[in-house]
């Protein structure tokens, strides 16, 4: 393990002339050349010459005093977020090599602020997975241990940060898809309040649950990225009419003002090393003066099946658009319905097909009330419980019940795979923000902790995250 400068450090160094963006970009490209054959974090990479040219332009802007907020920062973007200058495949044969006609709003916002987007990052196909193994372009490996997964679905986002192949990354989080990778790669992921970040240009999976989410190697850097991409977008009907929150200047919380609650019984679902790291961090917070208690929350123990029921139903509806006519994959038959079934059969991987079929099942006549409507009723219960609990404290849980699994260890059993999301889906069902950051290491493998606040409670999470970072010392760490 060693440390590498994060976004805030780089901006400071550029501003003072201590580092040149070209020198930095060349270093990042070198890390990519060194690690990518082993890790497979990127699906497509921008031409290195173009990246260096953009860095040169950034350097000139810094010298002229015209630098924008993220001038010369290299950001990787998950490949289910539309870019008009690089293919956007969602890691699926169905879309390869689709190039969208427009940029997602978040991509435009990053570019307007001077960030350099140097590649598109690997993921589970259509963001459906928790390990990063369901990509049509091959699995991503965890730089901390190459026989382990980096978590998913934003597997490339976590992995590129963990080997310093990017300064920041965008992922998307439907049920934990940036927070599991953050936990498994010793990085930081923040799923924002539902509606705070525009979803325009995000290839949809579960519309009512997902948010484009920033990842970085420190809490400060995640705050900088979120500040850049958040805020109302008239192109997304679910976008909140609110200004981007001011986060980058926040100071760490004073321990005495922190109140943390643990949902009763939830941490006990986790493996022993995870529980140990979690409680050890809470003890540390308490010894510094924070208040740590427990809270009873009805329904959260069944949040996982409720989440999957809703996500699968939304997936089946969303993926109906891939009919072999509008996107690259085609069928062969001259018979219309057969042609569509062929194109879909060829274009989707097994996990995606399974989720579509299950989505159709839970929405079918005769099953709809028993499955889908029951799940939406439980969702109300969970949301109301989370909103009630977060009025008085910040909720804390482990980020994942298990340590980073070995490749192949979980994907054979769908229930074992889904169980990895037990802690993270709660925030998606409730629409509240959730931060995952490193809590510690066990036998060289990272362990993450999750904090959840009430709606638009991102500033509280950032302040607590900064305090936790001071206590653990685990910011800007990279593998190798």
């Amino acid at each position, binding site marked *: 393990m060693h440390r590498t400068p994060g976004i805030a450090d780089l901006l400071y160094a550029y501003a003072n002339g201590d580092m040149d963006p070209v020198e930095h970009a060349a270093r990042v490209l070198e890390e990519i050349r060194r690690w990518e054959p082993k890790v497979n974090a990127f699906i497509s990479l921008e031409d290195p010459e173009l990246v260096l040219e953009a860095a040169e332009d950034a350097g000139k802007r810094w010298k002229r005093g015209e630098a924008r907020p993220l001038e010369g920062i290299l950001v990787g973007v998950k490949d289910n977020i539309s870019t008009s200058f690089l293919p956007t495949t969602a890691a699926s044969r169905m879309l390869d090599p689709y190039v969208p*006609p*427009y940029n997602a709003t978040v991509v435009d916002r990053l570019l307007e602020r001077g960030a350099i987007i140097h590649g598109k990052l690997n993921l589970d196909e259509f963001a459906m997975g928790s390990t990063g193994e369901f990509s049509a372009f091959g699995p991503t490996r965890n730089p901390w241990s190459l026989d382990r997964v980096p978590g998913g679905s934003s597997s490339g986002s976590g992995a590129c940060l963990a080997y310093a192949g990017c300064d920041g990354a965008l992922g998307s989080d439907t049920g934990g898809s940036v927070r599991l990778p953050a936990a498994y790669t010793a990085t930081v992921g923040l799923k924002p309040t*539902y*509606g705070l970040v525009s979803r325009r240009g995000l290839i949809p999976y579960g519309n*009512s649950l997902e948010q484009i989410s920033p990842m970085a190697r420190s809490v400060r850097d995640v705050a900088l990225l979120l500040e850049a991409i958040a805020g109302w977008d*008239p*192109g997304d*009907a*679910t976008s*909140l009419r609110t200004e981007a929150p001011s986060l980058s200047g926040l100071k760490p919380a004073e321990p005495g003002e922190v109140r943390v609650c643990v949902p009763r019984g939830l941490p006990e679902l986790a493996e022993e090393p995870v529980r140990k790291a979690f409680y050890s961090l809470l003890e540390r917070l308490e010894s510094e003066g924070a208040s740590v208690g427990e809270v009873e929350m*009805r*329904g959260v*123990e*069944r949040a996982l*099946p*409720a989440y*999957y*029921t809703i996500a699968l139903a939304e997936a*089946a509806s969303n993926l*109906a658009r891939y*009919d072999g006519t509008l996107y690259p994959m085609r069928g062969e038959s001259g018979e219309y*319905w057969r042609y*569509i*079934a*062929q194109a*879909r*059969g*060829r274009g*989707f991987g*097994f996990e995606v*097909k*399974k989720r*579509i*079929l*299950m989505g*159709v*099942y*839970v929405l*079918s006549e005769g099953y709809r009330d*028993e*499955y889908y*409507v*029951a*799940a*939406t*009723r*439980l*969702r*109300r*219960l969970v*949301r109301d419980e989370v909103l009630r609990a977060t009025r008085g404290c910040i909720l804390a849980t482990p980020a994942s019940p298990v340590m980073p699994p070995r490749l192949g260890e979980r994907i054979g059993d*769908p*229930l074992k795979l*889904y169980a990895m999301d037990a802690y993270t889906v709660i925030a998606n*069902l*409730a*629409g509240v923000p959730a931060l995952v950051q490193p809590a510690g290491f066990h036998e060289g493998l990272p362990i993450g902790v999750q904090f959840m606040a009430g709606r638009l409670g991102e500033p509280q999470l950032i302040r607590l995250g900064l305090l936790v970072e001071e206590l653990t010392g685990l910011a800007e760490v990279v593998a190798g």
Partner: protein
Amino acid sequence: MNEDWCSTVDKLSALARLELGGDERERMCREVKVIAEYLRGVGEALKGVEAEPLYHVWEEESWLRPGGEREPVDLAWVVGSDRVDEEGRLKVPWREVK
């Protein structure tokens, strides 16, 4: 029992317009059964609980509800003015076919 689930999978594949190849059908029969039984557990948590369905976490502030404020989005703003004709209709295809 698995045969029952295989007939369910066949019906679902037809509804979803999805062809299953190789050993996918057999594997799907096993996994769909396991997942369906697991998801049915949601109902148990609701015994004795009064809760209306929730489809959107910000339901009380949805602008799509009657009476809510909602400004129409201009098509040219979304796709770019070069892709919209004089009458405000979308021009397709968006790229030139060579």
